[in-house]
């Protein structure tokens, strides 16, 4: 059984590094949704939110609901202070150098598009190469397609090996073609593969490329140290890490953000507007046009507090144990084929599989009737589905509040599906 802690030792992980186990029973009391009796195995899609997060947003709405920055009264000052304190929290969370490298976005997708539009349109030219991978979520793939199309740049994809790991030989070969940009995911939302971000980044940098990392799955489940890995951009979403919907973060190195033109234009991001032209503020404000997702940012802060209160090593150990258990149990079922690496340090708590003779949709419908929520289909990774030559997969994913009993319910449901389709 692999009980290794995060391969990205969290810089501020306050949990016991030896991995004092999570008290999942206590944790589950923070999540009222479990009172409904649902077995929620779709956290890679969106996580549940604890009371602490919802209450923090309520507090804003009830006590100091105001716009930030724009106004000079106390209500707005309090809102601004909370809003900016979260920026510092995020900075610590991913160990950025400066909080000015933390750009609030509406989510991972928006952050990656920001890079594609602002950096991409300014810096790419015809014939330039972008390297991506076949395991990417559409949000870290389609923006590069559109950018490549617009700029007549080339877009090449690194394949995976039979266990769902990136083919390093192909990666290296593509680097020899001197790409301008390399975009890959920290953790695959379908395969659970944990990519060696630091190594890949060092190689890409040596080849002269910038590195954009999709942290949608990595930030919630492993945490991330942007300085240790030296990535240029890292994007993630609040809603996958116990925070509210509607907000996310783009980390970008200060020098890059400084040199990039604004993306969305409007209130807050300007320095001076004249009819003849406009000057812009410094990052991160340059990229934060219009009224921000204020309550949601404040909620994200509470989510980070919650996660750091548990500690990444303990969370990771908990998810590892669940992954081991689920992997072993699923392997014992006839006709179940699991995609992606086996449990281990480069595997996160995500298991995708198919069941012979039963379409993933039908599996999930039958599971749903027993109160088990799993994702089915392409998981927003269609190219990976083609690569695996499947119509889709069933995906079970785990988080800090997942308990073994939920996996047992998954197994029982799968047997029921097999009985029906026998």
């Amino acid at each position, binding site marked *: 059984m692999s009980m290794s802690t995060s391969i990205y030792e969290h810089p501020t992980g306050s949990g016991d590094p030896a991995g004092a186990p999570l008290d999942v029973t206590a944790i589950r009391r923070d999540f009222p949704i479990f009172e409904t009796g649902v077995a929620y195995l779709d956290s890679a899609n969106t996580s549940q939110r604890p009371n602490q997060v919802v209450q923090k947003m309520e507090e804003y709405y009830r006590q100091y609901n105001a716009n930030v920055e724009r106004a000079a009264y106390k209500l707005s000052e309090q809102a601004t202070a909370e809003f900016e304190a979260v920026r510092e929290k995020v900075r610590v969370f991913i160990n950025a150098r400066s909080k000015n490298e933390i750009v609030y976005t509406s989510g991972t997708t928006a952050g990656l598009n920001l890079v594609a539009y602002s950096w991409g349109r300014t810096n790419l030219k015809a014939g330039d190469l972008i390297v991506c991978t076949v395991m990417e979520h559409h949000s870290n793939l389609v923006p590069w397609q559109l950018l490549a199309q617009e700029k007549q740049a080339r877009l090449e994809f690194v394949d995976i090996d039979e266990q769902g790991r990136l083919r390093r030989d192909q990666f290296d070969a593509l680097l020899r073609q001197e790409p301008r940009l390399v975009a890959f995911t920290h953790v695959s939302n379908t395969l659970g593969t944990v990519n060696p971000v630091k190594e890949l980044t060092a190689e890409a940098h040596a080849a002269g490329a910038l590195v954009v990392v999709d942290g949608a799955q990595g930030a919630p489940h492993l945490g991330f140290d942007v300085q240790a890995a030296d990535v240029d951009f890292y994007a993630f979403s609040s809603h996958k890490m116990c925070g509210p919907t509607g907000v996310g973060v783009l980390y970008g190195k200060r020098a890059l953000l400084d040199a990039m033109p604004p993306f969305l234009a409007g209130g807050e991001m300007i320095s001076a507007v004249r009819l003849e032209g406009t000057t812009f503020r410094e990052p991160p404000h340059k990229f934060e046009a219009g009224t921000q997702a204020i309550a949601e940012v404040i909620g994200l802060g509470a989510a980070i507090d919650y996660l750091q209160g548990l500690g990444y090593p303990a969370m990771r150990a908990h998810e590892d144990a669940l992954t081991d258990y689920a992997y072993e149990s699923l392997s014992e079922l006839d006709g179940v084929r699991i995609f992606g690496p086996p449990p281990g340090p480069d595997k996160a708590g995500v298991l995708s599989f198919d069941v012979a003779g039963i379409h*993933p949709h039908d599996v999930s419908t*039958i599971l749903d009737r027993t109160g088990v929520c799993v994702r089915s*289909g392409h998981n927003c990774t269609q190219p990976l589905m083609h690569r695996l030559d499947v119509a889709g997969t069933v995906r079970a994913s785990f988080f800090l509040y997942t308990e073994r009993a939920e996996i047992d319910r998954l197994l029982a449901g799968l047997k029921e599906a097999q009985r029906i389709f026998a």
Partner: protein
Amino acid sequence: MADQMYREYILDHYKNPRNFGRLEDADISHEENNPLCGDVVGMDIKTRDGVIDDVRFHGRGCAISQASASLLTERLKGMSLEDAREIGKQDVLEELGIEISPARLKCALLALKVLKVGAYGLSQEDE
């Protein structure tokens, strides 16, 4: 335990789809996918004097989408194109005769969409 959704005949149509395959010299040939799951249904139709002479479907998908396609082709054979145009969502759902959850509605109606867009160029609202 009898299942409300995966009834005997649905599973039968899924495992033994009627009119499955392609038609070489189809007059109408169209394919649609369900963007949410990537499932595909395609249909080839041969007509004579405005009547559907032969029909085949192909594709891959869940029991619901495949059974629905299979059932629809059975119904279409020998029908006039004019009458086929009148087949509505409700008709297809009744023919399926099972309780369909909202998330699976698109699966149940994919074959109908293929017919409507392919034969009549009717772009259904995406809903």
